[in-house]
């Protein structure tokens, strides 16, 4: 009479393995999604390249993101701002992406950019404070100047914020009411 637990478990080996493989698959799938299919680098309505603007043409960040230094939001440049420059750059006027821009401008429509860095509504982040503290844009947004299409480089999750606040010993920087209110 067999009463060994191991023996009793023997028939369960295969189903158990299948479940194991399935679970492993789930993790692989989630990882693959995060790596290749996520919204970290969405396709924008206009194929705007930060590389061309920042690296090639040496435009400083806050030339376009004008509010970053003085308000909570960095702000995307208005369509008129884009056109302001591009009207006087005849070399690329006929390129298809600039034509798209021109169309928006002629129709007086805003460009529906897709948000790459999005925070939940209960997080009240302020750009101003961080810029005034001497942080470079790249510290959170990554090497934007090398990106053709913008890609989110940070998780934008709370631990990521808190780690930095802790590291830099921000005064009362770990008080919840610093960001949540």
């Amino acid at each position, binding site marked *: 009479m067999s*009463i*060994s*637990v191991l023996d*009793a478990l023997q028939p369960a080996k295969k189903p158990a393995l299948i479940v194991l493989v399935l679970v492993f698959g789930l993790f692989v799938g989630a990882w693959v999604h995060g790596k290749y299919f996520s919204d970290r680098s969405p396709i924008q309505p206009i194929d705007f390249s930060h590389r061309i603007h920042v690296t090639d043409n040496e435009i400083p960040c806050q030339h376009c993101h004008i509010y970053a230094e003085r308000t909570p939001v960095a702000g995307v440049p208005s369509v008129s701002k884009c056109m302001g420059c591009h009207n006087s750059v005849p070399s690329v006027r006929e390129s298809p992406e600039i034509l798209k821009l021109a169309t928006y401008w002629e129709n007086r429509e805003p460009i529906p950019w897709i948000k790459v860095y999005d925070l939940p509504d209960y997080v009240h982040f302020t750009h101003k404070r961080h810029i005034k503290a001497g942080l470079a844009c790249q510290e959170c947004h990554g090497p934007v100047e090398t990106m053709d299409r913008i890609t989110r480089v940070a998780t934008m*999750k709370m*631990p990521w914020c*808190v780690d930095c606040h802790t590291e830099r010993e921000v005064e009362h920087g770990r008080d919840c009411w610093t960001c949540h209110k």
Partner: protein
Amino acid sequence: MFDHGQPSYAEVNKDILSTMLETGPKYWMLLGMTMSVAGICFFMPWIYQLFVGVGAAGMNHNAVWGSYLSNFIFWIGLSHSGTLLSAVLHITNSPWRKSIYRSAEAMTLFSLMTAALFVMVHVGRVWFVHWSFPIPNEMGLWPNFRSPLMFDVMAITTYLTASSIFIYMGSVPDFAAVRDASTGLRRRLYTIFSFGWRGTAREWHTLGWAYTFFAVFVIPLAVSVHSIVSWDFALSAVPGFHHTIFAPYFVCGAIYSGTAGIVTVMYCLRKFLGFERYIGQVHLDSLGKLLITLSLIWSYINILELFTTWFGGTSYELEALSFRLTGFYAPLYWEMLIFCAFVPLLMLFKKIRLSWNKMLLISVLINIGMLTERFIIVATSQPRKFLPGAFGFYVPSWIEISISVGSFAIFVTLFLIFIKWVPAISIYEVKETLKPLRRNV
């Protein structure tokens, strides 16, 4: 010990295992019924509440805790006698424990589970309830260890774990018996459940040692659990909650209602599973005496509570007390006193103590009384706090009532499932009580 003559070892096995191995249509009907009641009365309203918010219940700004919490305490209380009684009687070596302890411990387990469900129903955002566990997380946030609710989480999970191990450990030899009596899949399963129990002397020795150790370990745990639950209330300054007597009060009430619960469960086992031979008048008599003792302690604490409130003489406490004794919920208060303080005194008569039907009635009444006691504590204190301008009122909504009813169905369902998986009476311990038979030479 046995009302109908002593059974043989084989008969014991057969009697008890037959409840597991032979399942009639009545069982399935009953199970189906309790499951559907649980689904309709408990889970459907709960799902509705998850969608609209806790506002589906009757709580309001003046009484933010309601019947969910009082049910929680009730079920925690009901859980109390099972494991505790079993452990106490095990160490004191009372022979009459042996045929009832398995079901009593199961009762503990299932009422704890039901109680835990009520916590889920109670909180506003159950989807974040895991935050109250000290799980390391990347946000670097920990629960608040000063919070009595945190103590609660700790105490209840510990108690649940300890009780589970305790009941499992006691069942291992019985699982082996099931294994030996069955074939096929069931045999395979019980091979696993029984950990390969063979019944060697060393195994018996180890089991005995471990079981006693756990019995000693569980007793203070059980006492602490309900003390801690009482601190949820007693640690606040709310008049009617803020009493030092609350911990013993809750523990005593818990054991009281739990013991009454055992009587009810015993009646059912006897009646529906045919355990007349194993559960006899000696059990009833002993439990009856225990109940009287507990009832007297309970009454004493109640009087003490009234006295200290009156003697303290603060406007807060007196107002809350007068609301309890004469306000809207006063009939419930007096009902509680009658059911929990006066009715049990009938058990002083041996005749009543030995009558199954009368004891069933008394035990059910005690538990109704205890359920109201918890409700009264929650419902009459909060609306009469400190600022008269914020005095209010609380009446449970039909959703709360339905969920309360459904919780009993959940408990019964769990119990019904239990009796088909675990021998409802400890086979080997019953055998221990049998007088040694003359061996046929």
